[in-house]
């Protein structure tokens, strides 16, 4: 195989420093495997690290087709040299190789073009990362009731945990919906980090945070002179997210004009920066999130139906904390341990009364609110035990509850009324049966004593209402 290559010596670098340095020395200092490959896909140079991975030395690899040295699944099934061109950027793919000592090694390959100053393609640069330590860490970091950093043991979260791994392996767009604080950002990051694009960038853009004109330039980039103040070329977030994931949060706030541009990207995978007609190919996976009701926005013609359909390939709805049965207690313990460890403090214990208050609360701000409670509490509490006096005042002091914003009720009726309101009226120390009794009386008063309507109001069945009325001695 190309015996003339065998006699070749590796070049030296003259102009980088005052002295001449060997190219192979430079390559050998790089901590990941590197191969320089010719246009004929034969190895021109490789470093020591790649030798350790593959088992083939630089000398014996010289002039050999790279597929025989690297022996990755990718080489055989989907050689990146055939997919990459002058327009596209580097390709980053997770795969595996079989080393000379017959080990199957998980690797991540980044394949880039080597060009002359005039842009002529002269070869390829391949970097190979050994993923064994990472995989070992991943398998060792398993925590019960969690996926990456998302914690939960409710059936609702179980369904999410089940779907996330397969979702991460897909290339489809994902639309994450859910109330504020339910963990949309965290889920988006998790999808990215567990996908084949994990090595690529995760770029987050808040569509509601910037005015329309700025957002367009931010997303798609601009050319020098495109508008007043555009003093240089600027790459947009789509370009920055090449080979990675672009997370568009608050997609419901994306201006109508930009919805068309996003639609074009989802169709053609190309973007056109402001002030130019040149199309740029961007290999980006889109994850969008919103707390708004996009279906309703489509009906009101505030969001494009076709964009909704394209984003809505996979929809993931994150349940609010009040619907995650059993998760509040788990999350309380999780954040108590985590935040105490961060602050270098001994984890305090929750007193029975404090726990009762925290469990009775409805968390309109969801997990974020719960985390904030714990962070506040751990900072305030200097004792070993957290008591109600360590909790935020509006949880324990009804007079302060009135100033707290109340989340919109999930369903009509008293049953969906915010716990904050209820606590404000009744006080946290009032036993639950008494609160329940009061709720029943209020419901009966509101519905003029009609039990079936009162049951609807409370979100109970008629028999539950009847049983509880009997229990509390309320005569209908």
């Amino acid at each position, binding site marked *: 195989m190309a015996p003339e290559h065998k006699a070749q010596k590796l070049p030296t670098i003259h102009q980088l420093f005052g002295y001449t340095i060997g190219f192979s020395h430079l390559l050998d200092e790089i901590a990941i495997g590197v191969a320089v490959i010719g246009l004929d896909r034969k190895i021109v140079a490789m470093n020591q690290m790649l030798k350790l991975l593959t088992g083939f030395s630089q000398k014996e690899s010289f002039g050999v087709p790279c597929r025989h040295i690297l022996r990755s699944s990718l080489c055989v099934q989907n050689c990146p040299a055939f997919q990459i061109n002058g327009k596209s950027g580097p390709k980053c793919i997770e795969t595996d190789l*079989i080393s*000379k000592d*017959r*080990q199957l090694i998980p690797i991540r390959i980044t394949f880039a073009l080597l060009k002359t100053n005039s842009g002529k393609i002269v070869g390829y640069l391949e970097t190979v990362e050994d993923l064994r330590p990472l995989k070992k860490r991943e398998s060792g970091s398993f925590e019960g009731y969690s996926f990456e950093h998302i914690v939960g043991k409710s059936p609702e979260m179980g369904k999410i945990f089940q779907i996330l791994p397969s979702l991460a392996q897909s290339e489809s767009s994902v639309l994450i919906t859910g109330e504020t604080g339910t963990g949309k950002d965290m889920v988006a990051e998790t999808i990215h980090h567990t996908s084949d694009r994990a090595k690529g960038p995760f770029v987050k853009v808040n569509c509601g945070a910037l005015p329309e004109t700025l957002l367009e330039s931010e997303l798609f980039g601009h050319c020098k002179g495109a508008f007043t103040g555009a003093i240089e070329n600027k790459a947009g977030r789509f370009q920055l997210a090449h080979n990675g994931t672009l997370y568009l949060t608050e997609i419901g706030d994306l201006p109508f004009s930009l919805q068309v541009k996003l639609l074009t990207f989802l169709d053609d995978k190309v973007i056109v920066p402001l002030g130019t007609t040149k199309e740029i190919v961007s290999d980006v996976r889109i994850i969008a999130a919103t707390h708004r009701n996009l279906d309703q926005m489509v009906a009101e013609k505030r969001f494009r139906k076709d964009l909704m359909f394209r984003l809505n390939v996979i929809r993931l709805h994150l349940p609010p904390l009040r619907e995650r049965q059993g998760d509040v207690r788990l999350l309380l313990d999780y954040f108590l341990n985590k935040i105490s460890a961060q602050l270098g403090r001994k984890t305090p214990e929750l007193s029975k009364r404090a726990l009762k208050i925290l469990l009775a609360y409805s968390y309109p701000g969801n997990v974020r609110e719960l985390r904030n409670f714990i962070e506040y509490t751990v900072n305030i509490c200097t004792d070993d035990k957290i008591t109600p006096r360590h909790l935020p005042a509006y949880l324990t002091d009804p007079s302060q509850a009135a100033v707290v914003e109340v989340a919109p009720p999930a369903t009509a009726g008293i049953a969906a009324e915010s716990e904050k309101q209820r606590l404000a009226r009744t006080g946290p120390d009032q036993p639950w049966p008494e609160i329940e009794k009061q709720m029943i009386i209020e419901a009966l008063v509101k519905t003029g004593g009609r039990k079936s309507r009162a049951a609807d109001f409370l979100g109970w069945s008629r028999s539950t209402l009847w049983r509880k009325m009997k229990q509390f001695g309320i005569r209908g």
Partner: protein
Amino acid sequence: MNATKILVPLHEDDVAPRFDLATEVLIVSKKGKTISKNKRIVALPRASAEQVCQLATTEGIDVVICGGIEETYYQYLIWKRIQVIDSVAGSSQSALKKFAAGDLQPGAIL
């Protein structure tokens, strides 16, 4: 003199770089120092190391000449008394020629 039956997983005309990803195998015999002209190429329904191993045992193969092979399959074939010459890089013809001449070693780059 008994003929030696050889199996070579293929990738185009080369020895397949990966034993587990080959979708074609070449089966050929060697008598003395001569490779028989009767060659058989078996197309596999899908790439599978298990299937190549099974083919090697059912066909009564004596020698497997291949590229990268996982330790499990290597040991299995050895256990089945099949000689494995692995990490061979190059064309299948050159590999067979070298094998017939008694020169083919594991890790040979042709």
